[in-house]
């Protein structure tokens, strides 16, 4: 995990020594020292943390099994299930609401995240490889611009992007979110640093001597070596686009195009205004629950990739 990807000196330690260090640690003489009563208090503190961090999820799961009458009647505890189990009727109501709008939102989120994420990954893998492998005129300046642009806050870009996109008649089209999401300077930086570490120059030179062309070297020699970083960058870019709120909020006025973040935001404010019936809250709650499942599942199953990616982040 971290050992495959972390590079540089930020943590004060070379990543490739990480795994042995950990092994040494767990098999070392330290562990027996720590057993016993002194560990009770740390475990209690950790348990308190878990309660705090899990509370919203627990509430959401419980609340999504309640009909809106049960939600508001005040008879059942907000943190425990009522007698009735209405999760499936809530899901049914959610997916039929306004002609299946929620399914559209979910589909849009997938489309934007995957298109934007794949695009960003392709661009940054190529660029990172180019920066690492070739010395060309303007390389230093270009790379300095890339580093600087990591620090440009998204906000500064949203307003001009909106004006430019609306000038090009691209607002309220999927391109308004997919194209800007394909730009990820931080991913270029990660790929460059990783390529510097992962690809021995002798190997590339040997391939050249054997008569392989540059494209062939990239595809057959370099790309397989870069795979762990490619997966991390893909994951981080997909998640970044999935979570984006400000850009789609600005670009879309047609609810059919909303990703699930903006859609739920709109549904929530509608539920807020609907003072009479309180009729939408169970939809907002169930919708929130369903929308977080894909990312949580992928984060838990792809642990070893994102942990590697985050520790590259910790380096620079």
């Amino acid at each position: 995990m971290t050992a495959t990807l972390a590079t540089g000196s930020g943590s004060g330690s070379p990543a490739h020594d990480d795994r042995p260090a950990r092994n040494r640690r767990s098999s070392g003489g330290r562990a027996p020292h720590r057993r016993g009563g002194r560990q009770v208090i740390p475990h209690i503190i950790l348990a308190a943390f878990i309660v705090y961090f899990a509370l919203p999820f627990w509430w959401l799961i419980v609340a999504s099994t309640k009909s809106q009458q049960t939600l508001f009647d005040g008879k059942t505890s907000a943190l425990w299930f009522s007698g009735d189990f209405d999760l499936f009727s809530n899901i049914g109501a959610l997916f039929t609401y306004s002609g299946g709008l929620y399914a559209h939102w979910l589909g849009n989120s997938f489309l934007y995240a995957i298109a934007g994420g794949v695009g960003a990954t392709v661009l940054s893998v190529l660029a990172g490889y180019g920066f690492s492998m070739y010395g060309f005129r303007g390389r230093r300046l270009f790379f300095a611009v890339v580093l600087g642009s990591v620090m440009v806050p998204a906000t500064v870009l949203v307003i001009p992007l909106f004006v430019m996109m609306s000038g090009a008649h691209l607002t309220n089209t999927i391109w308004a979110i997919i194209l800007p999401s394909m730009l990820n300077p931080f991913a270029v930086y990660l790929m460059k640093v990783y390529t510097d570490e992962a690809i021995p120059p002798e190997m590339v030179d040997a391939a050249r001597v054997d008569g392989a062309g540059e494209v062939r070297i990239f595809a057959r020699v370099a790309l397989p070596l870069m795979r762990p970083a490619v997966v991390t960058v893909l994951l981080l870019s997909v998640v970044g686009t999935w979570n984006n709120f400000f850009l789609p909020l600005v670009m879309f006025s047609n609810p059919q195009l909303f990703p699930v973040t903006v859609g739920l935001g709109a549904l929530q404010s509608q539920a807020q205004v609907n003072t009479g019936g309180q009729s939408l809250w169970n939809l907002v709650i169930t919708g929130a629950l369903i929308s977080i499942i894909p990312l949580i599942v992928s984060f838990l199953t792809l642990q070893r990739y994102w942990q590697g990616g985050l520790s590259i982040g910790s380096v620079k």
Partner: protein
Amino acid sequence: MTESAVATRRPREPRATRRRGDIVSLRRARWGWAFTAPFAVFLLLFLLIPLVYAFVMSLQNTTLAGGTSWVGLANYAKAFTDPLFLDGVWRVMLFAIVMIPAQMIVALVAALLIDALTTRFAKISRLLIFVPYAVPVVIGALMWGFLYSPSFGPAQELFGAFGLQAPNFFSDQNVFGSLVNIVTWQWAGYYMIIMYAALQGVDPSIYEAARVDGANAWQVALRIKIPMIASSLLLVLVFALIGTLQFFNEPQMLRGMASGSITSNYTPNIYAYTVAFSYHQFNYASAIAFALGLVIFVGSYAFMFATRKRSGLMK
């Protein structure tokens, strides 16, 4: 093990530079541009041009009658005397002072505990504390909005168990703390992972040495572990600072529920959004966003420069 290895890990110079001038390197240079060109196009179209365009817009004014005219720095002068803008700037600074330490302390305590405990429970905690990061910020704010809700949230129940009256989380005084809590919940796990990765990289023989000298676990954590991961702490601080100054999603999401307490100028970003998309004053909004962006850029760059020896961020 650490120092020597660090030195060898600097990115090497591309080998083509060694042979600059001959035909081979010329051909290689063209390949360098070929690989970076697609990214360069996107960088130009979706970052550099919008940036310049935002700056140009901020120097202009557009009126229905008079069209577009150059006004120099008038929009900036207006921004820095606009009480609504300054109010928001002041508020995000206050948020930075309260929110960043809150997140970092929670993250550091969790990271130190999980690093020190090698039990399965610690491993599970690491995952559970991190999970909020996998939730979109907007949905996280939405979930806490539910929990804060006086009509169907659990607050009254929880406070009632201690014989207390639940506070109104959306009141003018309390909404600040409510937002700090949401952000801490959302980001502490991410920062914990960064700190934990750094802690895992520290050579454990250093702890052994301290232990032999009679240091207890508390002293090891305070005197050795925290200084050893100072660079990660600084990095987290920069991340958190940049994020806090751009504060937008959470307060924007709570605005519906906390009607009145979160005004249209609650943070500079919300103000810029309102000015642009509710009042359609794109020029003034650009000036606000650009001024804020400049503060963030210069601030974070200066901070990284000032701490470069400790952090190794700018080598």
